[in-house]
């Protein structure tokens, strides 16, 4: 068969490539090249090819709690699910990817309507003369940390059994790594060697971020009231193999004209009852311009055992929000004040001009003309800077050591939408039907539920107190032939506008911030200043890994409103408290089999971490325990394997402490142990058992209005079995 032959030829080339370039390029670049080659290997098949994965199995969660709850205690998802990627290659340089997702919950109790196929990726990509790559449709965008970036949750030495689960949940949203998912066009030109210049890169993107609803169908909320776009570019030059400088520009904006096509759902309260306000829209404008530099001396001096790199980026951002209302035009020229001569009362009457071919008439109207009226907001500007210095040395087959020191200085109003949209949000996944208020970071990070079920009044619309839909607007869904794919997943691949981000950050009961507390958006996290030092070393030919990290950051400006305080000297001053962030992490991994020279893997890894968020010394804050947040994480993981055929993965993690206002304390634990048997290449049988436990103390308000803590706990037993086949 052709496919096999092609793969054979390319694999020979790959071996050649890997050995000849090894001296010149770094491992990470080689990996990237390798991955690209493997991708191109997949793409090298002429015509149409199919790939993907099909999975079948069940996952159950049984809930016990110290408090009474009415809903069901057990929840089972039993289903088959397939992700099918169809790749077509119309020419040797271009290809089209279409991804289909199929999901079938197991049940034979009754006939359900047709089970729909979800279509979640369509892209056309390729290259022109090998130097220009382009992607049209869905694409993964990559840029600098301050312009285009998606922050993946990072946990040092996370046990593999959990990493797999997290990646699985992210894959449902098509997330992988730190690339941002966008739709539109991306083109990337690389000149490659041109005289003394190693490379000139010119890259551009044009994307649509949001769309308006197209009719009055408002059953779902997957649209916005504005029409939002983005475009940007990067120009970069690389010389002497390791010196690089780039300029980046991204701008995000709402189109006013098309947004006004749709009258939104603003209320009078938005603008005060005086204006008969029909709609309110926010238009947001955000522009980021950045310069990045990078120097890799390792490449310049061509010593593979020393690494010394300096990377930095400086960015300037602008942000503005305009408010647009569709309201009575009180300044209409065609209004008259009419005085009733008998009573002396006055009233206003409005007229409209109607044009005929030979004259203009005035027609009396009952109310003033409504027009769109835009109020232009204030322009907010801010700067951001980060600089990384990496220094490392290795002695092949013995040890390696590397330090990364990062300096950050990001303004409070620094705004960069494509770098500051969270990919991990949080939210309840398991046993939601129980009605019990549960808050678990581990649940959100590691679990996800996907199902198809009939779309009915009962599960899709607003109910009255009796669970029925009232005969009003909401009752128009009488349908159960349509099956809808529902998912509970804490990850998102959408972008949030800066205004939405500010709203979400305030929603502490929903937005989970118990991980990555100091830098939720990585280097683009606004209002941070300080140092972050990471240490990474290996010994005994990679058999032992030791990692550490220490970060000391504080706000550049206080996020709080200024109030009167008593300072340390007893003076009354007007000030606002500043927040300090301290993060410490340490991790260790021991590859026992490497030390002892065993064929069968035995790996133990563990980590400890503490994230602290504290306010400075003002007495009212120092005394308030809700303002002193501290989250401690412990983890331990184990992997036992028999060749690559059987693996027993086990992990235990705890997360203790307070991270936001709504919670006083939440001590959670997760345990999982999974047996994975490789039936054939890409085909696994997985059996898993574990639990998820929380001791919670939440703030409640008593009848007198005083805040009192309420304590409860819950435990969920998790069992799952599945079989998967890659193709």
């Amino acid at each position, binding site marked *: 068969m052709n496919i096999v032959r092609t793969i054979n030829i390319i694999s020979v080339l790959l071996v050649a490539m890997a050995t000849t370039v090894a001296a010149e390029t770094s491992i990470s670049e080689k990996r990237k090249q390798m991955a690209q080659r493997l991708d191109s290997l997949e793409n090298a098949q002429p015509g149409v090819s199919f790939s993907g994965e099909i999975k079948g199995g069940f996952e159950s969660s049984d809930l016990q709690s110290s408090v009474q709850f009415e809903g069901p205690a057990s929840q089972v998802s039993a289903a088959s699910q397939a992700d099918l990627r169809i790749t077509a290659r119309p020419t040797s340089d271009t290809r089209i990817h279409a991804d289909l997702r199929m999901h079938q919950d197991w049940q034979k109790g*009754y006939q359900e309507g047709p089970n729909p196929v979800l279509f979640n990726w369509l892209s056309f990509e390729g290259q022109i003369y090998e130097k220009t790559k382009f992607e049209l449709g869905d694409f993964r965008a990559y840029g600098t940390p301050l312009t285009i970036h998606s922050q993946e949750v990072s946990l040092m030495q996370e046990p593999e059994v959990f990493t797999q689960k997290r990646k699985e949940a992210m894959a449902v949203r098509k997330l*992988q790594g730190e690339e941002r998912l966008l739709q539109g066009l991306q083109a990337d030109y690389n000149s490659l060697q041109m005289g003394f210049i190693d490379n000139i890169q010119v890259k551009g993107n044009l994307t649509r971020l949001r769309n308006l609803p197209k009719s009055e169908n408002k059953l779902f909320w997957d649209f916005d009231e504005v029409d939002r776009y983005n475009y940007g570019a990067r120009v970069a030059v690389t010389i002497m193999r390791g010196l690089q400088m780039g300029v980046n520009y991204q701008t995000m904006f709402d189109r006013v004209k098309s947004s006004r096509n749709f009258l939104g759902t603003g209320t009078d309260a938005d603008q005060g009852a005086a204006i008969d306000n029909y709609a309110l829209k926010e238009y947001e404008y955000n522009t980021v311009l950045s310069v990045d530099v990078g120097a890799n001396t390792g490449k310049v001096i061509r010593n593979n055992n020393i690494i010394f790199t300096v990377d930095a980026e400086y960015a300037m951002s602008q942000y503005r929000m305009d408010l647009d209302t569709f309201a009575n035009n009180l300044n209409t020229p065609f209004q008259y004040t009419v005085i009733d001569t008998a009573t002396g009362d006055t009233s206003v009457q409005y007229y409209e001009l109607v044009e005929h071919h030979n004259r203009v008439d005035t027609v009396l109207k009952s109310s003033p003309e409504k027009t769109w009226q835009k109020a232009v907001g204030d322009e907010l500007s801010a700067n951001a800077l980060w600089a990384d210095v990496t220094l490392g040395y290795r002695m092949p087959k013995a040890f390696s050591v590397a330090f990364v020191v990062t300096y950050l200085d990001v303004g409070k109003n620094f705004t960069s939408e494509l770098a500051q949209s969270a990919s991990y949000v949080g939210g309840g996944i398991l046993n939601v039907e129980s009605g019990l208020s549960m808050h678990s970071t581990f649940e959100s990070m590691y679990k996800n539920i996907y199902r198809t079920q009939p779309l009915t009044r009962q599960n899709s619309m607003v109910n009255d107190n*009796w669970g029925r839909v009232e005969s009003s607007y909401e*009752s128009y869904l009488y349908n159960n032939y349509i099956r809808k794919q529902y998912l509970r997943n804490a990850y998102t691949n959408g972008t949030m506008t800066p205004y939405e981000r500010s709203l979400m950050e305030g929603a502490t009961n929903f937005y989970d911030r118990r991980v990555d507390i100091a830098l939720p958006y990585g280097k683009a996290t606004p209002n941070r200043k300080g140092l972050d030092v990471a240490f990474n070393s290996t010994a005994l030919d990679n058999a032992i890994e030791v990692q550490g990290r220490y970060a000391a950051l504080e706000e550049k400006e206080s996020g709080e409103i200024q109030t009167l305080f008593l300072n340390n000297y007893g003076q009354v001053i007007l000030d606002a408290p500043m927040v300090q962030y301290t993060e410490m992490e340490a991790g260790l991994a021991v590859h026992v089999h490497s030390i002892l020279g065993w064929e069968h893997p035995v790996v133990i890894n563990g980590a400890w971490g503490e994230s602290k968020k504290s306010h400075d010394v003002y007495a009212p804050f120092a005394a308030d325990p809700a303002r002193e947040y501290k989250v401690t994480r412990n983890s331990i993981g184990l992997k036992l394997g028999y060749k690559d055929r059987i693996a027993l993965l086990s992990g235990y993690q705890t997360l203790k402490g307070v991270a936001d206002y709504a919670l006083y304390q939440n001590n959670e634990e997760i345990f999982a142990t999974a047996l994975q048997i490789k039936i054939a290449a890409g085909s696994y049988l997985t059996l898993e058992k574990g639990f998820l436990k929380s001791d919670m103390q939440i703030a409640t308000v008593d009848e007198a209005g005083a805040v009192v803590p309420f304590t409860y706990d819950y435990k969920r037993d998790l069992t799952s079995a599945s079989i998967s086949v890659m193709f």
Partner: protein
Amino acid sequence: MSKRNIRKTGVNMPKRIVLTVALLAAQAVWALPSQDVSQKELEQKMERLEAKRGVDITLDVKSEYLNARMDPTQSPRGDSTFNKENVGFTQLDLGFVFRPWEQTSAKIILRLASDYQVFFNAGAKQISIPWMSIDGKVGNAPWLVYNVGDFRQKFSPLTLYSHEIAVPNEAEIFARQRYMAMDQLFLGDNDRLLQGANVSFSKSFGEYFSPKADLIATSLRRPEYLDGDGAGGFLIPNKEGTGLNSNMHKFAMGLNTDLFTLNENVFIGGTYLSNFDTKSSRTDVPIDTIDPVDEYRSVFVDQDTIPENVTVSSFRAGVDIAGLLKLKSLSLDLTAELANSKWDLNGVDQEDGGAMLLDANIGFSPNDGKLFGIHLNTKFVNNDEHFFNPLAQSPSFVPTRIMNSDKDASWVKYGVFGSYYSAFDAISHYSPKFSPASANLVPAELYNGTQMTESYHIAPYSKNSYRNGVYENDEINLMRSLRDPAVQGAMDLGLATPNRTGFILDGVIGLFENSVELAGSALQMKEVQGDGKYSEISGGLRADVLGILGNANGKKLELLGGYTLINQDDLVANGEFSWINFGFNWRFHPRVGIQAGYQQLNQQYWDARKYTVLGESVNPFVYLSNDIYQAEVHRTTWFDEGESKRWLVGMEYYLGKNAWVALNYGQELVENTYNIEFQQESGTYAIKQFVHQFDKNLIEASISVEF
């Protein structure tokens, strides 16, 4: 390239890449936690490549156009309703079998359906996934086979089985229609279709020891909340206690073992099945009790709140005497099965039942049946009234009105009691994507929730009498009370039908290499508990004239005729039902032929078949007549007698078994008499008789191709 070579190169190839990846892994120290492609991701890409072992694509194309026109004498809903229904669709089942030559393969069937219309619907054709499975085997001559996802399995008629209706002496022109309707749901071979996991073991350790074992674990229902109109669940009405939705997760597990010995001529075996609701998954959602659309209709949804548990165990043994004696032209075998069921409604109600089946075959066909062969099968059944096993008893046929259902709208759900029910229609027709029109379909702005998007009425559903579900006790009882005795006979739930004792005898004589077949059957049953009595007798002759003459070269001239008489006398249905069948199939060219069929069904109920299962609150027969409907008072209705005939004639282009192109024309002529007892204004009850006579003209064009 042969399969063997593919595998050979397939193994060599990845090794080389593995080497490369390993080289990289050895130098992987440098990777700081960054945006790089990780070693793990690289390995996954590798594995994905390694896992590619081709794809096998299967296609099953079906296209049918059916036009049914009826002009009834009395129309309960007046003359404004549609007289004509056109079903026209093309359907492609696109099957992908990934890694088809591997030990583990994956199968997905995508069903692409398209109606014959290019007006509204052109932009939104439907794709659904009726099948998704992972199938694996272990060993070159596989001794272990497993399936995850959709799978089909059967153990024995009393344990895990799907009973399918049989129409004796059915002409091929009608049999094809039935095949098309059943194939929509992948029904066939009496396999039960389930979703979950199935593991089958089978290995021979020599002459004396060949064990077989099967293990199933399936999810039968999940908690979810169906809409009040009920049509998304069953197209049948609810009665007290019948759950048309589910609010508990229901599972079934089963173990089946058979031990064969003496060259697999003697066996003993047993099965254990457990079918249970998980109480802790119960999710209550209050549901409307008033239908917002039509105040005269109630919403037939009750919550199923009590967990139901059923366990079934069976023991069986069999001997193939002819096999033991190594007699080639003689067949002589005997099997016996005893089953026991325990039904428990969480302690609220509990019943134990038993069932017995004896099956004997005797046959003689000398010289491989070249000149003649005779085969006799006799079964003895003794199932008590409490024998309950949903995995064997859930019916695959629930008589349902199919064509011209708009004529009486949602009363279709009353099945045999619906005013325009005809057995022929229920058996033969189906509409995969039926979109009932609503009077409320107004392209206006929404203002009080009743307009614009009553999408229940415009969204499609599938009209079909055939089912592949597994039901609960009261659901099965409800379906039985709505059964069509003329089609389903005495054994409406197959050999596992509860409350039956008696025998079934089938015989067939074949002549001239089965070119002539003379078949007969007899059934004599009575209720174990109660006075019900059943008898059925049937005889038929099929003769291929060209076959008798020999040397047919793919041509045939087949004539078929038969008569069946069914007598039933129990509380649900009693009367006499007779079938006359004729068939004609002249394939004058190996690919081209003419087909014709005629069927006549006479139904005479001795005593009123009363529709009382619904109680007082709902009675479909008020819609038989506008007068009675106006009176708004009703009590009891019964079906008195009926006469139905149909004929169909057409041309065919024959491609092979289950593959053809045909163009047919025919008629269905039905006359049914009903009686309604109703309350007059004076307060006294009176009986009124209605004769519903309707004719349907059918134009049918069908294509079925599988490859």
